[in-house]
């Protein structure tokens, strides 16, 4: 499937291993990435906080570019925050024809126009709803047997439930668990899975921000997780990059590796850890890498056929 691909800013900035690992695994999942390299930052809710119309116009431009991308089935992103911030703008644009026309008038000079009803999915949703869990299971070459993984979603991809179309038919707030399970791993039940990493207030109230990160990481440690996995690069910044500081705030050693979703998928697809940028994390995912080598040694070659 070909998708209009929006990697976001952070995956090309401070978490380059996310963008890299997504590009690495896409062909193995038959996802063709058509990059939206003309699109601007989604605003992460901050531009909307400053001026709602500005955020809506910038994102309408992105949506219009996605609709122009030839042969693509939908738009896909790899950042919970992009997903949520864009969903908020799209909700307003889709709800009101008059407002949409007003925003499109600003885009008209560039020959761009957003038509209501764009499908924009995070990679996590696409895995479950488009590729499907059975198909994903088929492609696993190195099942994550005995790897204990804690899901960490990021607020923007689980709330508000109505805006994100999360319901009994599409329980998108359970998908990480389903994916971990399909990859052969063990899903860890701990308190922090749907909570806030604290990143948005890192510069306004550092103590509280790091206390949030530290608390969830600590809960994962107590639940004997080997690692966390997240579809949000901003969560990754607070949980991984800031973990040394979070340890000081909560007063305990954490040493909890945090993986980006495409990295975890990539491991199960049989890609060596170094090709997934696992060496670039602040908290070395030693436990995870040791585990992969141990499993590889045990299994020997990739499982037959399939």
């Amino acid at each position: 499937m070909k998708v209009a691909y929006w990697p976001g800013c952070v995956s090309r900035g401070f978490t380059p291993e996310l963008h890299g690992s997504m590009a690495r695994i896409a062909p193995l999942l038959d996802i063709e990435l058509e990059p939206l390299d003309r699109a601007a930052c989604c605003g992460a809710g901050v531009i909307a906080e400053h001026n709602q119309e500005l955020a809506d116009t910038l994102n309408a431009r992105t949506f219009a570019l996605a609709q122009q991308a030839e042969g693509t089935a939908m738009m896909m992103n790899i950042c919970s925050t992009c997903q949520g911030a864009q969903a908020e703008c799209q909700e307003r644009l889709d709800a009101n024809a008059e407002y949409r026309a007003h925003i499109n008038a600003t885009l008209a000079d560039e020959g761009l126009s957003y038509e209501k009803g764009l499908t924009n999915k995070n990679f996590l949703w696409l895995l479950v709803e488009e590729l499907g869990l059975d198909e994903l299971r088929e492609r696993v070459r190195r099942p994550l047997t005995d790897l204990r993984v804690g899901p960490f979603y990021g607020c923007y991809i689980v709330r508000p439930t109505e805006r994100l179309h999360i319901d009994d038919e599409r329980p998108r707030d359970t998908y990480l668990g389903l994916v971990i399970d399909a990859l052969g791993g063990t899903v860890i039940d701990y308190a922090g899975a749907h909570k806030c990493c604290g990143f948005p207030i890192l510069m306004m109230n550092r103590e509280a921000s790091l206390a949030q990160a530290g608390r969830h990481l600590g809960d994962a440690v107590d639940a004997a997780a080997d690692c966390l996995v997240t579809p949000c690069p901003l969560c990754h910044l607070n949980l991984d990059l800031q973990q040394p500081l979070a340890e000081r705030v909560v007063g305990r050693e954490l040493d909890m590796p945090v993986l980006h979703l495409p990295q975890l998928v990539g491991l199960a697809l049989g890609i060596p850890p170094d090709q997934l940028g696992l060496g670039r994390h602040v908290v070395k995912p030693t436990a995870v890498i040791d585990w992969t080598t141990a499993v590889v040694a045990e299994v020997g070659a990739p499982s037959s056929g399939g």
Partner: protein
Amino acid sequence: MAEFTLRLRRYDPESGDAPYWEEHTVDLEPHRSVLEAILQAKARFDGSIGIRCSCRAAICGSCGVRINGTPDLACHTHLDKAQRHSRDGVIEVEPMGNMPVIKDLIVDMEAVHWKKIRRVTPWLIAKQPVPEREYIVPRETMVDVTQSMACIQCGACVSDCLAMEVDPDFIGPAALAKAYRFVGDPRDDQPYERLKDLAEDPHGIYDCTHCFMCIDACPKDVAPMSQIMRLRRRAGSDYGIEDRNNGERHEQAFVTLVRKYGLLDEAELVPRSYGGDSPLSKFKPSVQKELASSLPSIAKALLRRKVTPAKVLKPHRLAKRDLQQVRRIYEEVEGHPERLELNLYITGYDEDEAVTP
């Protein structure tokens, strides 16, 4: 009639015993409420179950509890739905969070919720001179505050506020929504003073982590977080309040950097948020002190080649043609005489609305 089993969290702090779970099975029609089930269990099996309630019609805000881990009004939740969303077929009811338990399902609203409500001066400070009869205000100016006026003070948003979970001093969603009710009221005399106070408070409007918990929790669609964003917009854009918490500077820096590069330059965002919206901010001593305190993280990121010096010095940016488009959008939108905001709570959705996947 159908059978429903409740698992109630029982706790009496005065007894000295630890909290415990207790199950009761009741007979009720599936469309009846969780509150009715609790009251039936109380009447039939154990009169000592503590629950606060009054109107039973989702208007008095007394029966806020957590049902299957999610805050809601017990009288506003149908039994069949609650059972469907339970983990094991048993409807789990526990007291709200972030507030001390008085007994069983009753929490101390006074100790947290009402104290915070009083913190924001929850009454109109009348513009002088007070007119002889009513104030005459344009209808549109009041429409904006109707959403925050819908609050019934049930405390559901306070219960699950994730900022309050780690920072109990945070003023919180209910009180800040109430603050907007007066800041947005054209009859109020002191919107600037109110905003200045809430922006400068280290536990005020910039302490919200934007987690959307309160939006999902509210049984009345008040969307407290959206009201907090309105307070920030008023404080920063309308009154130019530069707060000591880096809130306004962070917002300004973010908006400026996206105008400049089309994409976000994280390396530049941090010093500007601390020191002001200028490329020279990183050289200010106060900013360098802040950056130095992050040294353990920065050093490791450099060591692992997560962040490279080249990336810090040369940010990613859009191609020239696209950058021009982005800047023109900025100019056009910011050039409008009035800021345009679409509040879907008020306008609703077009009738031909088709739900997108």
